[in-house]
């Protein structure tokens, strides 16, 4: 069958470089991947098309691009599943990273963020003569995280990175989790404090995009949530970044309000999280509140408890009892 692929191109060698779309018609069959198609374009039609690829088997992490607006591995994505009715699909470079040429993006920020999480094991010293002992189930759990091939699909579609370039991002934080979850690494405390800082684990908004687009099932957001849990368990809510403290308090207040009212009272959530007497912070929020009101997104000021709230409260106290039991 015939596919029309529209490719977003960019040539930095031009005098006034601008991106533009170019269409190619390619003969494809049922099993053709997006990568097969692009390779065909570059081998038979237009050798100037730049893209990274190598293994053709979703293991080297080279070929993350956007197809019809979402990040994928080109070599893992079948064309037939993305064709529109008129037989076309759209290809663009991965997002959130500067484009170098055509589908090739600058991954230096990606590696810099990886570097920032101290991405190497820090075990107890001195090293034993034989291997460090470790339970197989912990290792198997880590295989899922080590499955990350650093393709950057998650970074491409991360909604936080879109507005805050300082966020460490899903890939680096998933890597960070690998060390915290590895029983051989003994620097959990230091690590959790480090990831607790500005740009760290509390800046994820839990939109879930990274989980959706990750081609290897690493589920970065879930790793970030696991980091948060560990930070809370380890009572590491403070750091030089006050957002970290709020992140922790936010989760406590959230639980408190819901288990009392049966629903979330967003106004109360903000006030209680920041602290009733934290006037500078509260005043700082006035423009946000006004903006929200202006766009009719201001939460109602009064939040009556839901009907049957007693049941919610009973569930909450049961959970608390179980938690206390477990803590013993």
């Amino acid at each position, binding site marked *: 069958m015939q596919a029309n692929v529209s490719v977003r191109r960019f040539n930095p060698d031009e005098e006034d470089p601008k991106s533009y779309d170019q269409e190619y018609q390619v003969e494809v069959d049922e099993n053709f991947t997006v990568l097969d198609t692009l390779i065909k374009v570059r081998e038979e039609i237009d050798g100037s098309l730049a893209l990274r690829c190598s293994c053709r*088997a979703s293991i*080297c992490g080279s070929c993350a691009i956007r197809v019809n607006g979402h990040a994928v591995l080109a070599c893992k994505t079948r064309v037939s599943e993305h064709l529109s009715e008129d037989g076309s699909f759209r290809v663009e470079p991965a997002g959130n990273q500067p484009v170098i040429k055509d589908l090739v993006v600058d991954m230096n920020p990606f590696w810099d963020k990886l570097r920032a999480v101290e991405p190497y*094991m820090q075990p107890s010293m001195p090293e034993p003569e034989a291997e460090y002992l470790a339970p197989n189930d912990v290792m198997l759990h880590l295989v899922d995280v080590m499955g990350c091939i650093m393709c950057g699909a998650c970074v491409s579609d991360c909604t936080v990175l879109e507005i805050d370039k300082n966020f460490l991002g899903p890939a680096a934080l998933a890597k960070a989790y690998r060390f915290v979850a590895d029983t051989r*690494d003994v620097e959990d405390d230091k690590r959790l404090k480090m990831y607790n800082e500005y740009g760290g684990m509390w800046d994820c908004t839990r939109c879930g995009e990274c989980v959706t687009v990750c081609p290897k099932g690493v589920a970065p957001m879930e790793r970030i949530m696991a980091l948060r849990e560990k930070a809370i368990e380890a009572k590491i809510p403070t750091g030089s970044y006050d957002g970290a403290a709020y992140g922790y308090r936010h989760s406590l207040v959230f639980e408190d309000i819901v288990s009392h009212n049966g629903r979330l009272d967003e106004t109360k959530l903000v006030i209680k999280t920041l602290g009733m007497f934290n006037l500078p912070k509260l005043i700082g929020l006035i423009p946000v509140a006004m903006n929200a009101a202006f766009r009719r997104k201001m939460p109602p000021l009064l939040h009556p408890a839901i009907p049957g709230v007693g049941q919610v409260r009973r569930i909450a106290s049961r959970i608390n009892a179980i938690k206390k039991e477990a803590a013993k």
Partner: protein
Amino acid sequence: MYSHDVLVLGAGLAGMRAALEAAKTGANVAMLSKVYPVRSHSNAAQGGINAALTDRGDDWTDHAYDTVKGSDFLGDQDAIEVMCREAGQELINLEHMGVIFNRDEEGHLGTRAFGGQRKARTFFVADITGQAILHVMFEQILKYNVRVYDEWYATTLIMDGNRCGGVVAMEMRTGDIHAIQAKATILATGGSGRVFEPSTNALICSGDGMSLAYRAGAPLMDMEMVQYHPTTLKGSGVLLTEGARGEGAYLINTKGERFMEKYAPNMMELASRDVVSRAETIEINEGNDIDGCVLLDCRHLGTAKIMERLSYIHEISLDLVGVDITKDPVPIRPGVHYQMGGIKTDIDGRCWDPNGAWKGVEGLFAAGETACVSVHGGNRLGANSLLDTVIFGRRSAIGAMDYASQNSHLNFSENDWVNGEKAKLQGFLDNDASGDLVAKLRMDMAVAMDKGLGVYRTEDGMQEALQAVQGMRERFKKVVVQDKGKSFNTNLIFALELGCMLDCAETIAIGGIERKESRGAHSRTDYDKRDDENWMKHILLRQGDGGEVTKEYMPIVVTQWQPEERKY
């Protein structure tokens, strides 16, 4: 000018292991790679890495014997002894760096069975062992802050007479050409699998390092020894690990027979790779095939085991041919997988230095698939290659630091080398549109090689392939590079890679024609027996000044295992 004591070309396992060893001593070392380190092809290794651990009742001499026998007695036994003896410690080193190997109930490292070995001594991480080790090695590179020239393509070794003094390379992002000075240069540029089609190898495996060394005057050894892996996916040729058979999967033909009963009654599916690939080829030729394939059957392993230990091949079978291996057998056939031959080195990675006399290129070292020490001889055992990369990666770094501490930099004119290279590249860009496209020429070469130097070979077939390849050298001069730009010109890079592949193809064919016997992966129907009387020797090929190829021979090093008949 950029300048280092030790410069490592390649950032796969061999390259990173070398750079790490040098960095740990505080040496001035840098690594240069045409792809980001974790994109290197070592990540594709699935099955595992071999080591005989004494505390598990294993013995390195058993491992060495299996390796010697696997190599069909072409491997050099001194090198094999070094590799197998050091394997245990190096495996522990990897674990200490943070590799998350599968464990047994007590939390010790666990093993799985692999082909051609009498003991289960393959350590593994599910079926992503290469990736798991490569990424941890990269973690260490970050820890020690090793300077990496990411996405730089090495084009030429800087030479003065017989001495190498660094490399000329293209920074791909800008297209700029640079000379990098180094007292010692280590080639860790991987294999040449793309010389054939189909191939399990990634698109970047174009034998660049072998070609760079060859053009600089270093000999390539035993290039005819190309491994066909028995289980590569129909179509793309992507690999399904031997670990599947290690876990108990069967090979069946269309009649539903486990045909290995006929060919290797003891080891069955776990006979050595050359043996299994030949058996499949016979089955396919006899018509017991579907579309040129036989079947790999994992169903009886059960979903739980498949998802725990073989989940990656489950994923790619589903993605690439739409087969769920928990439910159906998957079509496979032999495909090109590994280059046993390569740049002749000694056990310290030197290229090469018997008794203080550099007989290849002075100041040049090589490790990993690009090198030929030779530990794999005529046929590599599964899971011995990752081991080879780390053992000889480390040793070559020690050798290179030693050399660098005793020698100064070579003096050369940076401008001359850079301008010379620019002129060469401009030559490609100036070709008009009348020649062949790069991909077309590569495909012609790869198909010719597959036809003439496949699982079974004959004089006529190999001669035909050689002539075809030599003809392509002429066509290559006029090859069309459509992209005329500077930045990230992958089209130009492919053309350069093709040039390297042609060197490899030619030496593979010449070596194949030269070796008039059947040994390991080199099976000739016209000389169908191993001939220990005449061929217990390596074939070394060098490029003369006029481009002609000269042949030399070297006896195989035998320490304790005399050649015997090879049965599985």
